């Protein structure tokens, strides 16, 4: 089997095909700390792409509560259990990826969810980890925790769905690295559904073939960010073209968050797919839990994020999230503002690093009422 280099596990690994990087790679960063699980992203996606007959159970974008939520049911814990305990040595993964641990006759470790596993997208919503003891009161840091995990297809560098398709009906676009299923060649074998560790390929029982997140490619081709990103009311998302760490561009917002500040991390890097959706980990969750999900760099990432008030550039990129529907290729912080530019250097957006605060008197003389909100 060919060897490919996966920088997220800092080593070479086995993959059924030799490395063939696209000209540029679609990527995104999601800031978990800002998400309120309003599911506006989920509905924006659903409305745009999966309102058809046979797509009722599909959420190409979903937001689930961790640790108890999962869609499809137990997608993560089932695979972690199948993979078994694995090890990291510093930033290098010394365990087995899903390709390296593949049982005989299979491309990867995986499982096919049962039909009803897709029926509970809201399972575990807002359920906290732990038990509320008698006499407990609210304080900071929280005694109990949960957080929201926003999920779309990772448009992986080494996709398991693509590797598992015996028909090569799944391809990674050369121009942007978006992973698509050829709807004319798919025969509904569901090898991709079985192999994708994130369970982001969906079988359509009416068309009897499989479908997945298309990264809103018709928008991306026009220089627009996907619907899930631009509809996010919490402004937690930003898209960009990501480079490998050695070619990181400090003016590229995604490169900056992932490679320069290293504040955004891949989800389950140990699976070995070199994913392209990155997460700023939740700062209030025990690192022991987060290490399993985001790898060994998680504590450093949280530390960096906590320092954002003293880091104008980091603050700048965080402020750019959701500030424009255009695709931001470069950013620059100057004075009290962050500027977003397109590939040609045209200014797309200008956002203040600190939103101005206006204070109003508590008593409104004109209407003779007291204000509840004075900012």
């Amino acid at each position, binding site marked *: 089997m060919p060897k490919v280099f996966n920088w997220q596990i800092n080593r070479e690994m086995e993959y059924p095909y030799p490395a063939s990087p696209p000209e540029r790679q679609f990527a995104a960063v999601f800031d978990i700390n800002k998400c309120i699980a309003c599911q506006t992203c989920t509905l924006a996606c659903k409305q745009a792409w999966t309102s058809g007959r046979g797509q009722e159970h599909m959420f190409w974008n979903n937001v689930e509560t961790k640790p108890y939520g999962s869609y499809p049911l137990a997608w993560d814990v089932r695979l972690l259990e199948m993979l078994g305990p694995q090890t990291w040595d510093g930033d290098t993964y010394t365990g087995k990826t899903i390709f390296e641990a593949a049982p005989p*006759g*299979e491309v990867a470790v995986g499982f096919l969810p*049962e039909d009803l596993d897709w029926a509970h997208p809201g399972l575990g919503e807002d359920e906290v980890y732990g038990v509320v003891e008698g006499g407990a009161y609210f304080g900071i840091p929280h005694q109990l925790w949960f957080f929201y995990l926003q999920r779309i297809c990772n448009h992986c560098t080494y996709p398991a769905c693509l590797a598992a398709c015996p028909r090569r009906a799944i391809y990674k676009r050369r121009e942007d690295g978006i992973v698509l299923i050829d709807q*004319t060649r*798919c*025969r509904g074998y569901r090898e991709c559904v079985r192999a994708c560790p994130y369970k982001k390929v969906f079988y359509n029982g*009416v068309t009897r073939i499989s*479908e997945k997140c298309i990264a809103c490619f018709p928008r991306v081709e026009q220089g627009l960010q996907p619907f899930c990103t631009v509809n996010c009311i919490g402004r937690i998302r930003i898209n960009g073209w990501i480079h490998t760490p050695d070619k990181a561009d400090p003016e590229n917002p995604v490169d900056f968050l992932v490679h320069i500040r290293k504040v955004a991390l891949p989800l389950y890097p140990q699976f070995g797919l070199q994913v392209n959706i990155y997460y700023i980990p939740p700062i209030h969750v025990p690192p022991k839990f987060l290490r399993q999900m985001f790898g060994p760099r998680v504590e450093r990432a949280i530390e960096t994020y906590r320092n954002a008030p003293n880091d104008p550039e980091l603050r700048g990129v965080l402020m750019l999230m959701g500030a424009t529907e255009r695709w931001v290729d470069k950013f620059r912080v100057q004075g009290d503002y962050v500027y977003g530019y397109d590939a040609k250097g045209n200014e797309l957006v200008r956002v203040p690093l600190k939103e101005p605060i206006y204070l109003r008197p508590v008593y409104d003389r004109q209407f003779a009422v007291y204000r509840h909100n004075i900012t």
Partner: protein
Amino acid sequence: MRWVVLAVSLLAALLLASRQVVLAQQASEVVSVLRSGTLPISDPFDPVWDTAPAVDVPLGPQATTVPSLLRLSVPTVRVRSLNNGQEIAFLLEWVDETRDDLVVAGDRFRDAAAIQFPVGQKLPNICMGAAGQLVNIWHWKADWQRDIDQGFQELVHQYPNFFKDFYPGGITGSPPYTYPGDFDRAEVRQFEVGWSVGNPFSVPYRPSPIEDLKALGFGSLTHKDRQEVMGRGVWRDGRWRVVFARRLAPPDAESTDLRQEQVPVAFAVWEGSNQEVGARKQLSGFYTVRIEGQERILGIPRGMLGWLVGGLVLTVILGFALRAIRRRTTLRGHARG
């Protein structure tokens, strides 16, 4: 040393013996019996099928490529064949306790069976053909059969209480909607992408339960432009009986010409309950189908020879008759004159 030699020769003998077993299997043939009249294409249980000799073809799990089948679920398939000099039909019969003909749910897989012939060359190296070695595959699917027998199967057939009040794209009518009827407009079909692009799995109108395919090696299986293979599958008392039928003459250059005395043939069966699909299947080695009536005498198929001789005799008789009539007319003309 003597023991080593003995062990090696024993091993060699064993290997040879096992090889011979394989050779003996490969020598088996399916005889396609020539009979006049229409073939029992639409009824796999027609007693006419009993006139064709049955061959039990052993199947093995596919383990040449990934994904592979680890647990064999259908050890043999019984094969019969009939032809009438114009068309040929095969009957495949196998034991399957579970009838899997609804694949709407994501964890359900269909029962299926296939017949493979090489196109052009004598015998392809491996299954599914290879580069430059085209094969022609006829693939019967239990769910396609159910679509034909009971109407296109979709959500309401899997989930009887399914209800959805609205679909976008300007759908007309009111819920509960019927599929495909209410959805058969370009704007509404946009969300049924497989159907919009004409994927044969997704298009909800089925001309045949059998798909006519071509392949040039693993992963290259492709739906042919021309679809002429017909047939029918029926599940009864824990077994499937499936008829595959086509003209002997190939409809296109990608189909196997069956106007030959002997054609290599291989079989495959999928057991849906065992989640078998695609490469997860059991298959046979190459067999030979001997097609009665296609034996060549002076380069002409035997089946055609009878017609040819008959035609020749008829032509001669007609010729004589015509001459006799013409002579009589001439004589009468002379008499008048």
